[in-house]
Each structure stands twice: as structure tokens, then as C-alpha cells.
């Protein structure tokens, strides 16, 4: 019996039913056999080895597992992998190109928006969703948009500054 987590694609235990799904991850279609109960966060982490999406609390409270599902921020710890079949998702690994960081990534580094880094991918994905909808947010709008994501290190002030830094850069780039 091979372990679910040894393989590139999860290979569940013998006799466990699986379903073949195709999910577009960061622009690339990925086909994978999954147990129907497998959580999307776990499919990304163990199945696709995209470990930038973190599992924090398992109850949708902390937001460390936030990804974009059809462009909207969702908590991937409370969605089943099979529910993503046929859909498009974005994770932190899709933010940068090989040569260039996304302005949100630059903003977090410039404004010291992270300490331990554990909440950071979720924070950045939630920020991306905000800035795509609202390219010129106020501080309060940023705080509200990130209120589903917990951070224990920074006190949020620099996270807010990071997002505003990115917003400014993105506006400048789009002009």
C-alpha cells in the first residue's frame, strides 16, 4: 500500500473510492485522483506540493489557507478538493513570476508586513482579491478586507501599510 503523501498525486489506501478531478492551479490544469473527503488545502499541500498554503486552524477562522477560487478569496481548509473540480484557483506560488515579484509581495517586504511568515500567504491572497476589486482602498477598507485573516506577530499596522504600498505601485503601473 502506498502512502497518500509519498506520491505527487495522492494515492489513497486500497478500497477507498477516489474521484478524478481537474483543477486549474495558477493557470495550469492539474489532474489528480482524490478521496472525496480530501480537503482542498491538503490537496494543494500534500498532493501538489504547493506548501505555501498553510493549515492554521481547520475551522475557517485564521485564514492562513486563504487562496483565490475563481478570483474570490476562500479558505481552502473548509472546501473539499472535489468541489474545485473544473474550477480555477490561485495560490501564493502563482503571485511571482520567475524574475519578478508581485507588488503585494514587494509591499510586504518593504513595509515589514511579516515576522514568522505563517499567515503571510493567506494575507497576500486576501489582499490580492481586495486590490483587484478596489485599487485605491482606504486604511479601513484594507483592515476590513483582511479581517478574516489572523496574525499573531505584527499587530497588523505594517500589514495594512504593505497593502497600501502595493496598491499605490499597482495604480502607478496601470497608468
Amino acid at each position, binding site marked *: 500500500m502506498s502512502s497518500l503523501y509519498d506520491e505527487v498525486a495522492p494515492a489513497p489506501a486500497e478500497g477507498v473510492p477516489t474521484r478524478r478531478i481537474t483543477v486549474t492551479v495558477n493557470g495550469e490544469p492539474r489532474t489528480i485522483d482524490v478521496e472525496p473527503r480530501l480537503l482542498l488545502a491538503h490537496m494543494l499541500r500534500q498532493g501538489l506540493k504547493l506548501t505555501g498554503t498553510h493549515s492554521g*486552524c481547520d475551522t475557517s477562522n485564521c485564514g492562513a489557507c486563504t487562496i483565490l477560487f475563481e478570483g474570490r478569496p476562500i479558505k481552502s481548509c473548509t472546501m473539499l478538493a472535489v468541489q474545485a473540480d473544473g474550477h480555477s484557483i490561485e495560490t501564493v506560488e502563482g503571485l511571482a513570476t520567475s524574475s519578478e515579484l508581485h507588488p503585494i509581495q514587494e509591499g510586504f517586504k518593504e513595509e515589514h508586513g511579516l515576522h*514568522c511568515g505563517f499567515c503571510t500567504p493567506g494575507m*497576500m491572497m486576501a489582499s490580492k482579491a481586495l486590490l483587484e476589486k478596489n485599487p485605491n482602498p482606504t486604511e479601513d477598507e484594507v483592515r476590513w478586507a483582511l479581517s478574516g485573516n*489572523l496574525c499573531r506577530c505584527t499587530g497588523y499596522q505594517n500589514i495594512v501599510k504593505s497593502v497600501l504600498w502595493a496598491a499605490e505601485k499597482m495604480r502607478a503601473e496601470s497608468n
Partner: protein
Amino acid sequence: MALDEIKIGGMGARRRRVEDNRFIRGKGNYVDDIVLQGMLHMEILRSPMAHARIKSIDVSKAYEIPGVRLVLTGEMMAARNLAWMPTLSYDTQAVLATDKVRFQGQEVAAVIADDPYIAKDACQAIVVEYEALPVIVNPLQAMASDATVIRDDKENQPGNKVFDWEIGDREATDKAFAEADVISKMELHYPRSHPSPMETCGSIADFNRATGKLTVYMTSQAPHIVRAAVAMVAELPEHMIRIVSPDLGGGFGNKVPIYPGYVISILASILTERPVKWIEDKTGNLISTGFGRDVYLKGEMALRKDGKILGMRMNTISDHGAFYADAQPSKFKIGLMHSTFACYDLPAAHLTSTGYYTNKAPGGVAYRCSFRVTEAMFFQERMIHAAADDLGMDQAEFRRMNLVKDDMFPYRTAFGFLTDSGQYEKCLNVGMEAIGYSTFKQEQEEARKRGKLLGIGISTMTEPLGAGNSREYDILGIKMFDSAELRVHMTGKAILRTGAMNQGQGHQTTWAQIVAHELGIPADDITVEEGDTDTAPFGMGTYASRSTPVAGAAVAMVSRKIRAKARKIAAHLLEVSEEDIEWELGRFYVRSNKERGVTIQDCALAAYSNMPDGMEPGLENNAYYDPPNLTWPFAAYFVKVEVDAETGVWDVLNVVAVDDCGVRINPMIVEGQIMGGLTEAYAMASMQYITFDEEGNCIGSNYMDYLLPTAWETPGFELHEVVTPCPHHPIGAKGIGECATVAGPAAFVNAVVNAVSHTGVRNIDMPMMPNRVYEALTTGKDVSGMPPVRISE
């Protein structure tokens, strides 16, 4: 020409963090990200009961689930002498329960399976029969003469008492009280709180039968202490144990202790000869791992009517849970509680402390503080606030009168600490100016006329950070020094390793800045590594704000050793005697001719290619640093709030933080630490606490019940800086990571109490949830979060 220190990323540079490069790309390497070939997964079955005898455990159904490899119970651990392990405070803790369970969430069995889902399923298939026992959830119940003894496993255990402890001068204190004009009293509860880093605890144990080597990847703030403990507990030779702490998703003291999960995963790997991964879920983390606080504090202060403090006496009763597992220096039973009032000129003081076992999770870890100083300083600033009010004195002026003055250093505190530096009054003045203190009283009165309740709160304190000198500080007998090892390669690049352990503080960035400051090697040319006991020098890890005071000092000292050797090489290269050589950042030159010089990089190359006759080749060294004293940063925090009289909801209007942590290595990171700490202070003041029902059920076992502030609730912060260099630290730095968590909570409580003081209320216990504030407003009585506790005089 001398280098520009800021340009090379030296001291004082707001250098952007090296670690961010991986974290912002989602390329961090946390324990759960590590996958080893053939790895199995472990899940722990926890007790649903807080106190119960285990009558039987049936694991047969678990083994029927395909993919289950091993089920471990306490009996199997006992057969290998691993059912109990030592704690960091000379007590013992059950690894897997054998006789009875002593708190809800205690480890009862563990399943090792092909994947974590199977392991979770199998835990549900284990049948445990319990016989309920009376549950004790607070010290009042624990101290009752007919209380059930929780630790019946221990011989000669006197009821549920853990310790009695006292310090200070009782006679001198009694005398001060006899001479007092006014005696002011304060009694409060500092509720149990959980550090709750975003990442839970976890480990991957990998025992290699062929080599005999055990490698454990784990979430530890102190990997070397773990290695020593594993060597003692598992009876494995220390050189065959390698502990690796990779990236940690926060720690805050929660990842200092050694938890049963680590030990079980090690045995599981030895038995299965496969790597075994254990990743705790959030509930497991909140209900079983090291909590902070949970102390009842009562005291009184002897005052002269002009405002001079004459003496203070204080009593603490602490709730340690089922096992005394405080992470603290062994001499001090209630941590550094006796650092209370260290910033005030206090002639006489006396402290008595008693600790009790209860049916709650063990801990008493230093949650973002230096061993119980959070409780010490919270009590201090609540007491000071009450005393000023009792005397009818202004809060700032009462503090100004009693703070230790600049010319009184070095100052010996009533409890025997030696504070060595500070400009307390200056910090107070900076804060008063920034918050608009002089006009506040008028503002408050005018607001009251409009039906608005404004309040202002001050908290001033110095705290002992950086344990510590080896005369006083040890954990399990191991002295609390720290270390650094520096290797300069032939092209002038370098690798630095320390015995500290980063968990978000940015050591990779700041340690390189210290080397850059000492040697002139650009910070970008220096790799920093920590956390692997096979490569890092022995150190006591990171907690209690000790990294910069101790390991950071070692980094400076090892750099100076390197510079001393480079000087000899420079003399050889310049063909002059060593006495004729001068140093400027990054370069040695001939005193008589400044143009004639060699860079540190030239010296590095020569150390491998052209060393003087008789000199040992290479350019590397290490330093073990035993600090002569603790470092004493000072904080003055001001909080302004508005309380809604109709609902008890309070809003923060301003937070002003003035911090003096000596010389700042990277101001950007220092400010980040202060803002993070202020947020945890706000959290504890407003919402964050762990409580229990009378059956010992943990109320706060997940983030729906255990409230943490988000970006929405958290106020903004205004930071100010005062710099008084530490006189004994090689670069003048003091600890900073925890000042705001320590001094912050009292500023928030003092502000809310000030806003409602017209009702006669003197205290509202944390967390000051709207219902508590509303109760205070409507009854005019203090609001206590504690059951009535008898406190001995």
C-alpha cells in the same frame, strides 16, 4: 575610506529582511512542509474528561482500519520507561496516561498510520473507559483540606500544593506599613491565556536503525535543550541525536516546553523504523500545550501622604494545571515575579507565592514575557494607578515622584535586582507630550458633560530581559549563556551560526548587521543559520527576550575575536607591527599613513593563502557569552479610550508607546516587535482568555471561542524612541520583543478604569469585555474574574 555603515547594512540600518524572500513566495520551510521518504503520520487521542481514572483502553478496532501501523498506549510507553517525562521545572508529566487523566485534552493514545486521515479515523475507533473523579478547576478548590489529590502518582505530595516561596524583607516591609499615612490595596486575577502561535506544534522523528542516529524536525524555540532532554529521557547518546528546528510559525513561549507528542513520535519512529510526522491540530494546541498567566495577585502599598512610596507587600496564588511545567530559571519558583516595581524607588518589599495543581493543562510558560514579568508588571501598574487615585494625585506626577532617577543608577531594587541604566522621566515626558496629557483632564470633563466617557491610562515599567548570568539563571541545571560561531571564507563572505532560534524575530537579518558593524563585511555577504543542533553551537534558544541580550552579544564577541586575528594578518600584509595598525569599519591601516591599508576581505584571503609564519590558518572562531547582568529596557505607554455608557463597549482612541531598548540594531524590526506586543496587550485587555467550566471543559478550544483580535479591532499605534545604551552589553542593546506585551495590558485597563472612575470602580479584571464594563458602570463595584480565593497574610 571608511565604509558607510548604513549602506553595508550595519547597525541602525532599516535593512529589509532576508527571511522575507522565501516567506513572500510561499517557500518557507515549516515542519509540516517537510516530507521524508516512507513517512508515516501520527494522531493523538486526547482525554475528553478533566479528571478520571482509566479503567480500560481497547485498541483492537483501530487496528482493523486499513493503513494503521501502530497504536501506542500508556502501558506500552511504561514498558519502555517512557510513560512519564521530566518537565523544565523539576516535576514530571505523563507522556501517555497510564493511571488516570488529569486534564481535558491529555494524551491517552496515539495512532501511527499511512496518512493523517486514517490516523484520525483510527483514534475515533479506540475505546477508552473512564471513571470520573472530582474536578478541580481553580486554586481555591485545590487548597481545600478535603480536595482530591490530583498528583497521587507522586510520593510525599502535600495535597495539591506545588510550592511555597517568598522573597524580600518581611520586617522592613512591616515597618514601612507601620509608618504609612495611607495604605492602598489591590486584588486582581490575571486570567489564563494561550500564546497561540499561528503554527501549532509538530515533529517528524526519523530514527535510522543502520546508523543509530535519531533526527527530529520539530517546532522548538530551544533545540539544544531538547537534545539534552531526549538524551536523558530516551537514553540515546547525545551525539546520535540531531534536533532541527526549521522555520517556526511563531512561538511566544508556547514552543519552549517538551511536549508528549514529540516524545511519542520519537518512540513511534524507533518502533516502526520509518519517519513519523505529528502535526497537532489547533484544538490540541489550545487545550494541551503551555498556557501563560492564571495568577491571583493581591497586595498593598504603604504610602506617605505626600505621595512617596514606603513599601509594598504582595501575595500570588498561581494555577499550574496538572503538571508543574513552567519554563523558567530553576531558582525562581514563580519566575521573575519579584521584578515587580523595579522601576520605582521602593525602600521595602516582600512577596509570598504559592502554586497549586489543578485539573487544567500544564504550562505557565513565559507567554511573550520574561518568566512571569507580565503578571508582575500588570500588578505593579494597577497598584500604582489605584494608589495615585487613593492619594488624589495625578497619575503621571505620582509616577514621576517615585520613578528611579537617572542619577540613581546602578540601582539595587528592594528584591535584589540591579537595574543599570535608563531615562525614565524623559520617556514619561515624551509620552505625555505625544498623547496630549496636559489638556486631557479638561477634555475629559467636557466630554462627560456631553455624555461621553473618556479615559487615559499610563503604564511605565522596566523589566529584566536576557536571562541571564550563570550565577543566577539555569534551566534544569544548564546555565543560561548563549553562543555564536563565525566562519569567514577566503573571499570575505561568511557564515554565522548561533545557539538562539528565530521564530519571526528576524535573526537572519539582524545578526548579520551586528557582524557588519563589527567587521565591515556587508550584511548581504553573511549567511545566518540557527536551529540545527548538529551544526549550531550550543545555546539555550530564544524566549524571554534573550536573543539580542545574550546570543546577539555573542555575535559581537565572536566578530571581535575574528577582528583580532585579522589585525595580526593585516600587520603581516602591511609589514608593520601590530601596534602600528588602526581600524576603521572594514579596514586596517597604518597609523602613520592612512592610505596604506588592507580590507577585512584582504585579510580573509590571506588567512587561507598568505598567513604569517606560525599562525594557524583559517579565519573562524566561536564565542560563548555569559552576560554580567540582565538588560533593563524601559517602556512608557499611554492609552486613551472612550467608553460607551449605554453598552460598556470601549474604543481605543490613541496608543502612544515610548520605548527605550538601548541601541537599536534594526529600527524597523524593533518597531515591528513593539507593535506586535501592543496587539497582544490589547488582546488580553479586551477579549483573549482561556476559561473552564466546573467540569474542567476548556472554553476556548478553538478560534471561534478563543477570541483573537483581527486587523479590524486592533488599534493603530504611535511609537516613540529614547535611547539609553546598556552599559554592559557589547553593542549597548537591550531586549525588546516583549516589553509591549508586558507593560501594555495595564495601560488599557488603567484607561478604561479611569473612564469609569466617577462611579467609584477601582478594578475591572481582564478581559474587559463590554458586559464587565457595563456591570462596573451600572453597579459602581469592581468586577472580578475570579472566584473568591483565600489569601494568607
